[in-house]
């Protein structure tokens, strides 16, 4: 019996909060079974082992915001079969990208007195610099999407990720539409599915933390928000939160 070769998996963290890695570790029921099929060859938060070559699957959490990260993402790309932009930060820069609308030196001065040692630039998703094979959206991406990415890689098939809006999931949960019935400013109609419509299920509007769905058209939603009385500033804040830098939202969010 030949020993089956395990999938070589790496998990990297760039400019981010570690929440995506925490979601990975939330696979409590699956983790031990998974390690029969995959081996973590780089996962600094969880282990000492750190190999720098030949990744079958590399999850990169966080965005690129320093020269060092820029150098690193290129090296990672060169040795990775399937490179995964793991979470909103790696795709659009997520919440920290709000700073992209401010001047970099002003931002630095607010936080640090001596800004000379700072090596930081406007942050961007990793696709800005290298080709990406798969994007797991969400802040954080639901653990089922992580399983889907690993499972499909093991089977050699294309992963089945949801590209449609959260409204579909919300309907399946039989929630009353909080936008049309309760006039709450819900981002659901332009936001990508995957979370299971948690926010409307918990009685509140979706804030859009899974980023834009495919072919999202934010303009009619923005008009509807205006009709419901949103101020111009609040509208910008709404779209300039999780995916303000995305091509779908950048016009509404003020680029």
């Amino acid at each position, binding site marked *: 019996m030949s020993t089956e070769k395990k999938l070589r998996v790496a998990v990297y963290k760039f400019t981010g909060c570690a929440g995506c890695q925490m979601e990975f570790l939330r696979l409590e*029921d699956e983790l*031990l079974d998974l390690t029969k099929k995959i081996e973590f060859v780089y996962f600094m938060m969880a282990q*000492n082992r750190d190999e720098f070559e030949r990744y079958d699957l590399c999850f990169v959490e966080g965005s690129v915001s320093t020269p060092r990260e820029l150098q690193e993402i290129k090296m990672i790309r060169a040795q990775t079969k399937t490179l995964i932009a793991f979470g909103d930060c790696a795709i659009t820069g997520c919440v920290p990208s709000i700073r992209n609308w401010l001047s970099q030196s002003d*931002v630095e001065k607010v936080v640090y007195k001596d800004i000379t040692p700072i090596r930081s630039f406007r942050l961007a998703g990793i696709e800005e610099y290298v080709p990406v094979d798969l994007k797991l959206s969400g802040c954080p991406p639901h653990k089922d999407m992580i399983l889907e990415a690993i499972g499909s890689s093991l089977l050699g098939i294309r992963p089945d990720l949801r590209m449609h809006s959260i409204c579909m999931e919300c309907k399946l949960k039989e929630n009353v539409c909080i936008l049309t019935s309760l006039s709450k400013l819900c981002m659901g109609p332009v936001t990508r599915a995957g979370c299971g419509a948690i926010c409307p299920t918990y009685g509140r509007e979706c804030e859009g933390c899974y980023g834009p769905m495919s072919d999202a058209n934010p303009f009619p939603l923005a008009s509807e928000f205006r009709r419901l009385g949103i101020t111009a500033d609040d509208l910008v804040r709404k779209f300039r939160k999780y995916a303000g830098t995305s091509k779908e939202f950048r016009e509404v969010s003020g680029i």
Partner: protein
Amino acid sequence: MSKQNGIDAQTDGKKVEVCYVARVEGQGGINVEVTSIGEAKAKFKVFEPMRFFEAFLVGRKYNEVHELTSRICGICPIAHQMTALRAVENALKVEVTAQTRALRRLLSLSAWIQSHTLSLYFLTAPDYLGFGSAIEIAEEHIDAVKQALRLKKLGNDLGELIGGRAIHPISAVVGGFTKTPMKEDLAKIVLRLKREKEDIWSTVDLFCSFNYPEIDRPTVLVAISNDKEYAVNEGRLVSSHGLDSPEKEYRIHVQEKEVNYSNTKKSFINGGDFLSGPIARVNLNYQKLTPDAKKAAEQLGLHLPSYNPFMNIKARVVEVVYALDEAMRIINTLRLDFSEQPIKAEVGASCEGAALTEAPRGILYHWYKLDSSGIVQKADIVTPTAHNSASIEASLCALAPKLLKQGQDLTLGCEKLVRAYDPCISCSVHVLRL
């Protein structure tokens, strides 16, 4: 890349350099030097990229501050949310209901359970059992790892039940919760809390069996404290050296300094470093622990007062026992009013508000100044790891010469010490000048 990003530890007996400490959250390294006369110098270097939260929070609205600051840290998002909510509510003079306070406490305890379990089994235990990771531990101690995974899942599930999602919860908002948890779901989770509580004594035994290094350097212990309960979300700032101050006077007592080798600022009280986190809390609030948590402390041989940062590990076990007890008590005594809606905040005058809470790793401070439309004008956030970074360096200086004298592995010893603090490095990098 390996030079920059890997563990690049050189030990010639006098000098330790670990560029990237494994099994901690975020990106940081240590640099320790011992001179020939046995004096040590240590640097805790954080190269985690900066994210400038205090800068881009300016111009955002009061009701999204907790949602945004949650993203400071994926391990302790709940602590950031609870602190931001209370700081904003203090500014806007919103008084939340007893039910909201109880549910928030439950949410924070869920975070303690999952964070402490992660720290104990995934980050700490491998050092003492001689493995590289919890996954490797599973090859020999499958039951312990399975228990750890169950406990961590329980913490996450409790967080999800109350907050809608374990990582970056969504239902806690200014003034309360958008949804009250269902009675039957709470009843189910109480059964699981009960079961894990029965099994917790094997965790106590495991962490009792390890040999922890001694650091007998007296230091100032700092925590929040109140008369009613073991302080989690609210309390006065107190220390082992007589400090007792309301949270809004935090800035009178705690000063910050920037250092050129690290992206994390250092905090001082009266010019000296201090220790915050599990061991400080157990020391200062011991009387408020449940009988079983006290029993765990006794079985672990946790003698108080203790100033040894390695005792953070034992204190985490004690706090897991406490969190299980306290979560059950809260759920069993909750009289839920399902019609309760978040209390509406009124904006209208410029105002400011501060809040201090106990995150799993120690005290967490948020302060905001809002304008008359409820827009953030200024923000100040100081995290547990920023509070502890000066203490980490001082403890490394105390430990290193001792390890050398005893002929022990200096690199591993220093790394173990850093992990005993369980630093959360993403959190620590950001911060504001006043």
